[in-house]
């Protein structure tokens, strides 16, 4: 990757304007064959817009695009794909009810006498999958595979058209570490074949592991292009957000200083033997007022399932939940909300925001639902509420009438948080609130969690990033294979210790876990069925 002669893609002075916004302002961008390139920037920096300009989704208002030295202007993604630029999006856009082969060949099925040549189709897709070293039956239904495998199939589909440039938009946001490794293996083999790969991800570790070169954007402008090995992480972050990032360090110190006074803090909720078949084994969990409890575990470990029981999203079929000492059955989210328990789903798009409603409507929705349809919140009060949350959470654009679907991911998450904060919850359950959002927004959300807990709100916090769990939580509950394996005070806990528990639950070697009250570690199933491999019933796990 030293000075390659000819870039395969060269974009110069790209400008795109939307009414009132300069989304891209004179941005240069280039990619060389056989390199993995990352596009870095905060939400709203212009990454997606640049990708959409390259793939012809948006027309450009200024600048030029060349592919292998010739000027191009694509009328749409189909033309871009025909020219060798393929895109795999964050959400897998495939058809779960069709076979793997059909998905790979969709829209360009091999034909004989006008009819689809099924045998050729199967043969070609099998060859493709083999080329990526994937052991997948082309005849199997796509929907039967985990999300990670579906993602790889999407890549197989993308490279079938002789791709010169492959764009991967947040491909790892729902993969576990094994699956990421598998994806990286595929990326490396494509790289050897001379494909230029654009890898967009919020995970700095992954960017540093797989990428050769990166381009940083900020506010629609080019900050610069760098070789990854020559750019320190701290410098990268600084370039992305354009200011010194001290917020996270401050938090760390604050976390250490906050101590929940266990003696007089009332237990707000107490789950005893709460469980649901196929979701989570019966488990106990007390949460005190003002306490932040972190749930650590892989995807599919039961962490989300447990949280959903506490939030009334799913019904528990065993055990009971006591709220302020009174046993309560939560049958619907509505009941949970009336007990001031708010559950913020990890699936922001499908279970969180209501895209076609305004920021204002989205923020007041839960509060209004709790009041009932007949007692509308006065318009003035709605505006006050919305304004105060837009300011407090720094929601951009600061327009209460903007449709939420037009906001960036981080801002959608903030709107969702505002919705839950508006009901003044006593327990706020946050399932992956910082996934897929940029560092600035992440720090703001983490800071918020602290402030809330200091004011007496209990928080149940789920995150795939163990550092984040450790930074924020007073207590950490570890889950593995759909059961709670440990409930620990966050006092000298380390990521390595947590990893060990998540991996196999054996704690005998861990002398550091002095306060550890390890639950059910002897009842845990044999290690063979446990470790980091994705479980069969879940889309995949994640370390």
């Amino acid at each position, binding site marked *: 990757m030293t000075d390659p002669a000819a870039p395969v893609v060269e974009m110069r002075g790209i400008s795109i304007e939307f009414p009132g916004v300069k989304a891209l302002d004179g941005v240069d961008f280039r990619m060389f064959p056989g390199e993995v390139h990352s596009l870095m920037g905060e939400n709203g920096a212009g990454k997606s817009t640049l990708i959409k300009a390259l793939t012809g989704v948006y027309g450009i208002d200024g600048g030029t695009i060349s592919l292998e030295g010739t000027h191009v202007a694509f009328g749409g993604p189909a033309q871009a794909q025909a020219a060798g630029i393929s895109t795999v999006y964050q959400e897998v856009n495939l058809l779960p009810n069709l076979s793997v082969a059909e998905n790979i060949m969709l829209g360009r099925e091999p034909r004989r006498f006008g009819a689809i040549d099924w045998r050729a189709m199967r043969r070609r897709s099998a060859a493709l999958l083999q080329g990526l070293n994937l052991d997948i039956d082309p005849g199997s239904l796509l929907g039967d595979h985990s999300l990670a495998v579906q993602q790889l199939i999407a890549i197989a589909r993308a490279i079938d058209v002789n791709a010169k440039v492959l764009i991967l938009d947040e491909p790892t946001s729902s993969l576990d570490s094994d699956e990421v490794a598998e994806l990286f293996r595929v990326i490396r083999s494509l790289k050897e074949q001379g494909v230029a790969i654009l890898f967009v991800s919020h995970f700095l570790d992954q960017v540093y592991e797989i990428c050769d070169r990166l381009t940083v954007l900020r506010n629609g402008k080019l900050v610069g292009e760098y070789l990854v090995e020559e750019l320190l992480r701290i410098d990268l972050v600084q370039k992305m957000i354009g200011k010194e990032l001290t917020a996270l360090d401050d938090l760390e110190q604050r976390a250490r200083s906050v101590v929940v006074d266990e003696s007089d803090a009332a237990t707000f909720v107490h789950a005893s033997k709460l469980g649901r078949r196929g979701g989570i084994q019966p488990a106990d969990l007390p949460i005190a007022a003002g306490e932040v409890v972190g749930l650590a575990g892989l995807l599919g470990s039961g962490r989300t399932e447990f949280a959903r029981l506490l939030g009334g999203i799913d019904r528990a079929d065993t055990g009971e939940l006591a709220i302020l000492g009174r046993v309560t059955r939560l049958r619907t989210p509505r009941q949970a909300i009336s007990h001031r328990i708010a559950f913020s789903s990890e699936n922001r798009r499908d279970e969180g925001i*209501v*895209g*076609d409603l305004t920021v204002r409507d989205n923020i007041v*929705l839960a509060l209004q*639902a709790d009041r009932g*349809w007949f007692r509308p919140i006065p318009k003035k009060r709605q505006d006050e509420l919305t304004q105060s949350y837009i300011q407090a959470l720094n929601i951009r654009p600061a327009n209460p009438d903007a449709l939420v679907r037009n906001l960036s991911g981080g801002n959608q998450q903030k709107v969702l948080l505002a919705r839950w904060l508006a009901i003044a919850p006593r327990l706020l359950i946050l399932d992956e609130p910082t996934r897929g959002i940029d560092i600035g927004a992440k720090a703001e959300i983490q800071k918020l969690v602290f402030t809330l807990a200091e004011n007496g709100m209990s928080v149940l916090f789920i995150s795939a990033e163990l550092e984040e769990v450790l930074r924020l939580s007073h207590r950490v509950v570890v889950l593995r294979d759909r059961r709670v394996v440990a409930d620990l005070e966050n006092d000298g806990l380390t990521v390595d210790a947590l990893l060990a528990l998540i991996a196999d639950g054996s704690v005998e070697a861990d002398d550091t876990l002095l306060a550890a009250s390890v639950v059910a570690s002897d009842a845990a199933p044999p290690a063979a069925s446990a470790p980091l491999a994705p479980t069969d019933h879940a889309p995949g796990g994640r370390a």
Partner: protein
Amino acid sequence: MSAVLAKVVAHRLFWPVVMLLILFTINLIAFPGFFTISVRDGHLFGSLIDILRNGAPTLIIAVGMTLVIATRGIDLSVGAVAAISGAVACSIILGSPEPGSLATVAVAVSVALLISLVLGVWNGFLVAVLGIQPIIATLILMTAGRGVAMLITEGQILTVNSPPFKFLGSGFWFGVPIAVIIAAVVFGLAALITRRTALGMFIESVGINPEASRQAGVRARGLLFAVYTFCAFCAAIAGLILTANTAAADANNTGLFIELDAILAVVIGGTSLAGGRYSLLGTLVGALVIQTLVTTVYTVGIPPIATMVFKAAVVTVVCLLQSPTTAEAFSGVRRRLALRAGKGVAAS
């Protein structure tokens, strides 16, 4: 100035209103007295009044349909419900010793409306509780309903001679046709109830994202029951007006294909069949477009055999104008023009 114009063009009601105005213009050319409204025998009289009066049943059903469609649903059974309510009212009036008394008609109308509530709850049950797709769930009542109406009328066309009942369809109040007044009341109440309370927001929210709405504590099930029941109620009112207008209950033909006109009115009005944001005002314009079309056919003298084709052509144009692809093409042109204009200013 051009910014104002752009805003007007971008408004969701722009194309339906333009369509309506074009239809009005065609009518005016073919029949110069089109806009004239006179008073005869103390009643308002004129082409516009006819459009309003004849369009009233479609509008009433379309109002209910709008709310159903906003929740991602559809109600195909409205025509059948209209037929049932007409059949019920007529058979009660016929069976009574005093068909002309106000009390008899009041009972007949009340019973017909009550039965429609039951039918609406049935649709709501199929959709909200059993989770059947709305198009299938309401198809059941669409086909079975006419059979029920047939049983009620025993296969006959029930002709009633009851002045108070007849008044519902062709009477006037302060010179305004009763049907128009009823439609105005239904429309006004629906707008008031959904937009002055949080009901409208909940309906849209459920239509856009049912699971997110559930998790936010919105009672989606109750909401679905409410909209299907309201829609059936609207259908029954329309059925009574239609039946009263001819003073006869015809199980086979009362409200035939009215569900399609109602759905069309909603769609022309800019409410998406995919659910979500709805516009009752749009539905009003849509219903007027459809009824004006029918009138246009007569005033312009289009031969009856070509009527359907003409109607289809107009509807196609409206739908094309509203499609996202067309909108995008238009906005692309607009954006470029605006940019060019901006650059021109900068250069000079």
